[in-house]
């Protein structure tokens, strides 16, 4: 059902972070990218809980990298956005754009 392919607020932010990072997207970089761009402290648990949900919906895919010594011999889990995920981002962006059409957001901000 194409009309239901919307992303939640944090899902939207995470998918956009994955798109910015492209092939460098794994837990640490995604967390830092979101903190850098939104100035909001995010936990690694929130990132993985969201990525798991997005993966279950088919919006992202993951693969394991090679183990590295600075991670105590653990592998990085890299994520990338699927075509369905890109479509969901577009769908959400269009919905947000339509909802904000005709609103003077500067005026609203001054009252918040």
């Amino acid at each position, binding site marked *: 059902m194409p009309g239901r392919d919307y992303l939640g607020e944090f899902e939207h932010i995470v998918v956009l972070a994955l798109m910015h990072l492209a092939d460098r997207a794994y837990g*640490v970089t995604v*967390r830092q990218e979101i903190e850098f761009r939104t100035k909001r402290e995010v936990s690694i648990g929130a990132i993985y*809980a969201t990525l*798991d949900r997005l993966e279950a919906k088919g919006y992202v895919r993951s693969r394991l990298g090679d183990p590295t*010594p*600075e*991670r105590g011999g*653990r592998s990085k*889990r890299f994520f990338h956005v699927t075509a369905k995920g890109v479509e969901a981002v577009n769908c959400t962006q269009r919905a947000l754009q339509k909802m904000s059409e005709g609103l003077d957001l500067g005026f609203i901000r001054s009252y918040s």
Partner: protein
Amino acid sequence: MTSQAYLGQPPRPAVWLINLFTTHKNAESIFGDLLEEYSSLASKSGVSFAGRWYWRQTVKTIAHLFGSGYRAAPWSTTAAAVGGFLLHRFVSGLPHKLLSAVTDRYLAFWSTHFNAYIWVLKGMTPVHLIASLFVGCVIALAAKGREMVATITLALVLCALIGSAMVWVATHWPLGIVGMLWTFADPFAIVVGGALVRTRRSPAITLAKHV
């Protein structure tokens, strides 16, 4: 290598706590990511700053993993908690039933050894706690992979019931609340049971690689 190894040791209790809540699929990546950032922060801003950061991440991560664990399987988690509640009702009543059966049968003995009877009564509290611990273990065994989510859900339900009972007691007999405080040990014992099972089951890689 030695300084890297030294800086790369996050607080062990925090590591253990996260380990209780992570799924097997995510354990390696979550611990790897946290260790990578912890080591980087420790070398830039010091071990104590990195330790505080690790603890903040631990608390937030546990909250998110608990929530996502419940949302991922709400029905099976609820079923485990409801089953656990019924089992707890049954098991926690057993020591008292046993005591009543024994005292009724050997009434003459207890009447001449009243101090021994008092000691048996005092022993009911630890027996009760052991029963709760057992219930926690059973729920955790049933809710494989979501041990902590199921046991904490049941513990929260019990805490809510105890809290409601305390409010009622407070309105009728304020001093009675003090005597009821120990009942919070039951939900705590259930969570401990869940943590014991989870610790035995958790993948060895998560803790072993931190050492």
